[in-house]
């Protein structure tokens, strides 16, 4: 297939949120406040954001710049936008909260229960932006650039996706890190394993 191209990159590292290198929010040292501030920086009205679990908030923030009025992905049909999101802990933090609540109160909040799957964050993105494309949620000890490339290539080649939101998102034990990018195809590709390794090493 043609080369694969990265169109835009967002990074969130413990409160510091950047879009193509431009800083939109900085860290306060409080993980919840940082997520709130980063979302506020996007100026997107979404009442249910405050009710999401942290993993879904992180994923929503990291993807939000792609969907603004001038966002890079808005020119693609909603059913041709795929997703490949990888992380280590998935919904582990929410799983733990759910278990703690269950043990303490003998029942758990349905609103918490619905977030006890690692791929729910992708569902949130799909609902927010009306996406109908194919997606993969992958768990890995560390960013596996080969697997990410393979997965994106499969979506672009075999599932008729025209663009893929691809990246790493992990939130656990007080640390929140995400690096997302929009990938598509083109004659002049700029995405190989070395470039991906460089992006993930640079941004965590």
């Amino acid at each position, binding site marked *: 297939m043609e080369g694969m191209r990265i169109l835009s990159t967002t990074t969130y590292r413990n409160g510091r949120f950047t879009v193509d290198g431009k800083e939109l929010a900085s860290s306060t040292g409080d993980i919840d406040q940082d997520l709130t501030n980063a979302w506020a920086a996007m100026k997107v009205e979404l*009442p*249910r954001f*405050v*009710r999401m679990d942290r993993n879904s908030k992180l994923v929503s923030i990291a993807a939000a710049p792609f969907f603004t009025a001038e966002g890079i992905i808005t020119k693609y049909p909603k059913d041709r936008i795929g997703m490949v999101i990888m992380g280590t802990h998935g919904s582990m933090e929410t799983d733990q909260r759910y278990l703690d609540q269950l043990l303490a109160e003998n*029942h758990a*909040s*349905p*609103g918490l229960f*619905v977030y006890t799957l690692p791929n729910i964050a992708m569902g949130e993105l799909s609902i927010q932006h009306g996406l109908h494309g194919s997606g993969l949620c992958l768990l890995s000890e560390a960013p596996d650039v080969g697997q990410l490339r393979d997965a994106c290539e499969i979506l672009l080649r075999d599932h008729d996706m025209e663009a893929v939101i691809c990246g790493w998102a992990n939130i656990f034990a007080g640390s929140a890190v995400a690096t997302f990018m929009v990938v598509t195809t083109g004659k002049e590709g700029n995405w190989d394993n070395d470039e991906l390794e460089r992006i993930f090493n640079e941004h965590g």
Partner: protein
Amino acid sequence: MSTDNITTLRQDLKAQIISHLNLEGRTVESIADDMPLFDEGLGLDSIDVLELIVLMDKHYGVRIADPKQGREVFQSVATMADHIQANR
């Protein structure tokens, strides 16, 4: 139940809904008794209904057993309060 009591129940219910559903930016005063809970009203969704069922059970001791009943009960704070008043 007296008018004062039903008013108090509605106010308490609004506060509980705000707290349980984490309705950031909402106040008791901003929720009218007859405001629809869904869509153009409070904008709640299907997951929120589950939260409201748990809230009514745990806080007011009232259970919703029949889903059809839920559609009538969860129209507004007023209909929820009426159901609580009639069943607890």
